[in-house]
């Protein structure tokens, strides 16, 4: 092997004496790097970037996905969005959902992580228990919550009845269904937030806590002034990640309420799917997707801008 390799080396050196383009390419670090990433880059290009660009084109066309005829309609799809009351309703539901889901998941995740950040017996059992909701498939999650919150036969109402509260319709109610989905997704995502916060909590140096304790700081003050600021990078990550996921809520809605009752849980991506694959207005749906994309970009940019002020890396 070594003989062969040195032979190749010699050939390469000879090639360098009269550098052709192949020789130059083989010698450059950049070319090697590009070649190494190219399998991934090509796949992402074909299955990620290309569809994104085709969707952009689609958003300026009228298409039912069925016929090959896709006439250009200019910005009509985007203008139509502005006067669509159902789209406005979907935006409203998405905002309410995001505003509850993101802080909710972060808060519950932080509390659970703080509780798990100690050395007690069987701590790994508790940590696994906290994370296990992430391993539950969305379908199972949907079915579990459907039965838990069933208006007549669900465990939640049975518990409420036991303490003297009358049965609630939950997913069958236009005013409660969205909040049930908030609760359900917080449950599903808590494990993720716990893992992120737990890792960050273990990076908080104990000397700081000891020094503050000697200076007479109470546990709550230490948590607020030492732990929380040092968790801020993790919080920023969760904020951005959970917000993007919240804006794209679909699976849980599709599996439980199908956007109902009476559109009460129709969020943007559910409406988009309905328009594209039930009503066959693919161009209109693509325009909706682009509006959502732009909103996500702007929101993320704002979050990073705010982060400069509130996030401490050390």
């Amino acid at each position, binding site marked *: 092997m070594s003989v062969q390799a040195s032979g190749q080396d010699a050939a390469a050196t000879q090639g360098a004496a009269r550098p052709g383009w192949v020789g130059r390419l083989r010698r450059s670090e950049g070319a090697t790097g590009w070649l190494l990433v190219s*399998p991934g880059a*090509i796949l992402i290009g074909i299955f990620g970037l290309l569809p994104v660009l085709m969707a952009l084109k689609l958003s300026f066309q009228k298409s039912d996905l*069925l*016929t090959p005829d896709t006439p250009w309609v200019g910005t009509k799809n985007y203008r139509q969005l502005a006067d669509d009351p159902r789209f406005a309703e979907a935006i409203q539901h998405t905002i309410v959902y995001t505003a509850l889901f993101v802080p909710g998941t972060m808060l519950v995740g932080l509390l659970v992580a703080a509780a798990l950040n100690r050395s007690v017996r069987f701590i790994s059992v508790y940590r696994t228990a906290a994370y296990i909701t992430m391993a539950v498939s969305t379908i199972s999650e949907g079915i579990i919550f459907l039965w838990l919150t069933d208006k007549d036969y669900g465990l939640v109402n049975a518990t409420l009845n036991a303490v003297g509260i009358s049965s609630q319709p939950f997913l069958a109610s236009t005013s409660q269904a969205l909040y049930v989905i908030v609760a359900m997704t917080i449950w599903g995502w808590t494990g993720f937030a716990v893992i992120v916060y737990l890792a960050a909590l273990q990076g908080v140096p104990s000397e700081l806590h000891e020094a503050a304790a000697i200076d007479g700081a109470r546990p709550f003050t230490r948590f607020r002034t030492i732990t929380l600021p040092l968790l801020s990078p993790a919080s920023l990550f969760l904020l951005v990640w959970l917000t993007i996921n919240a804006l794209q809520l679909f699976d849980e809605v599709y599996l439980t309420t*199908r956007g*109902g*009752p009476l559109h009460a849980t129709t969020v943007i991506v559910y409406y988009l799917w309905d328009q594209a694959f039930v009503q066959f207005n693919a161009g209109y749906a693509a325009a909706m997707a682009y509006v959502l994309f732009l909103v996500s970009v702007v929101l993320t940019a704002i979050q990073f801008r705010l982060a400069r002020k509130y996030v401490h890396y050390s």
Partner: protein
Amino acid sequence: MIKRQTAWMAAAVSVAALVLAGCGGGGDSGSSAGGGKTKVVVWDGYEDVQGKNITALIAQYNKEHPDVQVTQLVSSSDRVLQKVLTAVRGGSPPDVAYMFGSWSPNIAKIPQVVDMSQYVQESDWHWDDFYEGERQAATVGDKIVGVPALVDNLAIVYNKSLFKQAGVAPPSADWTWDDFRAAAKKLTDPSKKQYGWLIPADGTEDTVWHYDAMLWEAGGDILNSDNTQAAFNSDAGVEALTMLKDMAVTDKSVYLDTTNSNGTKLMNSGKIGMLVTGPWDLSSLPDIDYGVQVMPTFAGSDAGHQTIAGPDNWVVFDNGSERKQAAVDFVRWLTAADQVKTTSLTTGDLPTRESVGSDASFRKQLEKNLTGSATFVQNLANVKKARPSVDQYPAISEAMGQAIVSVLLGKAEPADALDEAAQTTNDALNGG
């Protein structure tokens, strides 16, 4: 240096592998498989006993036709349209796909879909032997977009012991909707969390077709005769929806399944007196003693007993003349009377052909396999109307679904809700 060269090679090899893999995929879609056999690719969503049946039939066909290789790809029926659309766009549709009948007007617009009208005229197809409702649902304008694969219809499935406990006579063939309502009320017992009836109330087509059958029985129609305007906001439409309102809102005798997920399970656990459903649910009711009866009529309406059929089709796609012909031949064989009979007796599905369904000894055998299925076969004769074949149907179904759910939830009055849905329908029909 050695390291770098190895890395260079590794990268080059992986790129080559990727390119080759891409080519392999492209080459595979050629018209003939190895050994000179003509390939026919079938996409369907059959599972369990239905899945075993279709797999066995395909194996039998392959054995009897050594020059053809039929292969099967199983995918959820709900999502097969999305997948077919993607495949059509990508230039590699299947040769045969199982598609819901309600998609027919939209399927008719796909250029690769083979118009079957030229084939089914041939005498060996016995096209007229398919039930009228099935043929209607496969026809869009002058095109026939598919061949009936599965047919069903709605009838009352009731829990015999709950009727006995409540002291109510079981449904008879001359029940009116008022009898149905009275029975549902008596079967409802809040203390036992028991309901007389359960209706899917998620506002999808599953909600709508329950109402469609009632609308037709009351003498109404979904659209006017030339499919240019909504007709469901007629007196008949209001009468049918008011009946639903009286039961759901006034009597509270209906479990509103707003997530459309609980129906069969609750029926099987003895919490529901009656379901209006199709034959596919019968095999999921092993724990109760049930009976089946045709839908009630509206007193004073001369429309009589009706029901709605949801016939689904085998749709053939054009992948070149050789594969097209092989696919057409396969579908003709699969939907011939012998195979229809085998399928029906194996799976409990209703026969798609009248010659099979009208055979009394066949019905007896079917009933023995699955109690109640003979009533569903006879109920096929009550399929007198079909959903309108217009490509705006999804928008119409959506508008009607929301109207029905808003009434069921007590948020709107029948006439207002239907008028609003009619407005949406008319806008959609007039290119809104």
